């Protein structure tokens, strides 16, 4: 179960998405996430979804992995959708169960929220799936390098992120091992209520923390042995250069943004659809 965590994982490949400049990927993902929250109608949402599907296909990342990335937010999506359906009473009522009104407006908002959350998760997982952690943190370091003026050590933060991402799989393995060790000594990690289970995890996390500190200590030695002395004077194995494909990607996402802005002005929002549907239904009935 714990091995299912795919956060921050990287799947090496040679697709066009893999080869995009990581700085551009970072910026594009950011624009995409903002854009997806600005979509107010089906045309805009459709465009953004189409863009995402195309990117996924181009990246050659298996759909199974994409599905895996959505799994952890499934509960959140479910809860928000249910809440929207129950509490949003706009539009016409389709079903009435006592005090519960299911309305068209509620369903519209539920669908939009679901699509937004899923697209957000898929877009950001696609970023880490196709970018090696080192390149990703390098990109962050470069994009945020102006912060040096206000005395923020961007390099250290980026290095910490590299190491954190590097150690995620190692620590997951370790949690697995410690859990097995504690289970073999009779620890019950799987039954009881939340509080009992939380308490049962203490003997898992104590050794994990202690080991992490000794790991950090050893890693620091190893880094010193390899002449690490901070960001100054470091060079890089991989260069970052904006190529034609980066500008094309930027153009594509800006075009999508254009569609959103235009359609938001020209096409009526879903709440208004429901009004139209409303009058249509009334006309029929």
């Amino acid at each position, binding site marked *: 179960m714990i091995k299912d965590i795919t956060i921050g994982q990287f799947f090496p490949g040679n697709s066009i998405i893999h080869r995009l400049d990581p700085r551009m990927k970072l910026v594009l993902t950011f624009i995409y996430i903002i854009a997806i929250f600005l979509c107010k109608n089906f045309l805009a949402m459709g465009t953004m979804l189409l863009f995402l599907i195309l990117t996924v296909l181009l990246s050659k990342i298996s759909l199974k992995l994409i599905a895996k990335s959505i799994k952890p937010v499934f509960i959140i999506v479910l809860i928000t959708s249910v809440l929207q359906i129950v509490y949003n009473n706009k539009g016409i009522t389709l079903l009435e169960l006592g005090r519960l009104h299911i309305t068209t407006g509620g369903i519209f908002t539920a669908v939009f929220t679901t699509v937004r959350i899923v697209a957000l998760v898929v877009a950001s997982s696609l970023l880490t799936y196709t970018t090696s952690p080192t390149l990703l943190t390098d990109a962050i370091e470069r994009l945020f390098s102006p912060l040096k003026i206000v005395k923020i050590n961007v390099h250290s933060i980026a290095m910490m992120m590299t190491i954190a991402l590097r150690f995620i799989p190692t620590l997951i393995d370790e949690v697995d091992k410690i859990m097995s060790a504690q289970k073999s000594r009779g620890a019950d990690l799987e039954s009881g209520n939340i509080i009992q289970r939380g308490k049962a995890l203490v003997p898992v996390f104590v050794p994990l923390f202690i080991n992490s500190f000794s790991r950090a200590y050893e890693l620091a030695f190893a880094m010193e042995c390899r002449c*690490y002395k901070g960001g100054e004077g470091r060079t890089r194995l991989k260069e970052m250069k904006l190529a034609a494909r980066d500008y094309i990607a930027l153009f594509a996402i800006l075009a999508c943004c254009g569609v959103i802005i235009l359609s938001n002005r020209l096409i009526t929002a879903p709440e208004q659809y429901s009004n139209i549907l409303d009058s249509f239904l009334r006309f029929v009935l």
Partner: protein
Amino acid sequence: MENIVEFQNISFRYSEDEGEEKLPLAVDGVSLGIKAGECVAVLGHNGSGKSTLAKLSNSILIPTEGKVMVKGMDTADENLSYDIRKTVGVVFQNPDNQIVASIVEEDVAFGPENLGLPREEIRRRVDDALKAVDMYEYRTHESHKLSGGQKQRVAIAGIIAMRPECIFFDEPTAMLDPKGRKEVMDTIFRLNREYNITVVYITHFMDEAALADRVVVMDNAKILLDGKPKEVFKNDSLLKKIGLDVPSCAYLAKELRRENINIPEDILTREEFTQSVLKLLGEK
């Protein structure tokens, strides 16, 4: 030949927390010279001070007393630590705790990147280092998915990419299975023979120590024996007293001699053992 690393009558004590009792000396008056091109094994029990020796070799730790000189540079001089670490690299026991980046080639590039080398030079060094440890085809793999022996070889490549003249290996095989252990030891000997890198490896496997040019035995923070493997392993009763053993083939040869089988006394390695048994069979 000149000494590349010289421990001059050094002592070292780990600093204790306040109020605690003073810790015993981890290294107590050790003098040891490592000649350029040598392949030295350091043997010793847990807590004999052998691992501390590796950390003292490139100014990760500074001796409490005495001096460590690396090609004439004093490790106590902080301004020189950068040059010292370029000359003497250290590979530690746990490969997981030495690998900084998630992708093999990016990790190997970490050292050269720190040295501020130009991009083409980094590329060349990374490729050369990965070929030297026979991991070139894994360069774009994720390090956490490799086997223990492969990970340790990546860690070695990370040090080789800095082109050091001498490498200290601190129990590089202790956490590996027999297959990984053999991979790593083969790599270490190849580096010594083909790349002419001075090698010092700390181990508690007698069979590994028997393959070195020179064996140094440490006990209780002091050097007990120092010499060619054949000379050192002659002292089997002394070794047994400090909880060490002789290589398994030496033990087997000794037992066979006791059964009046005419086998030479100074056998240490499997190779030698096979040869003499074959010779014996040929005579019959």
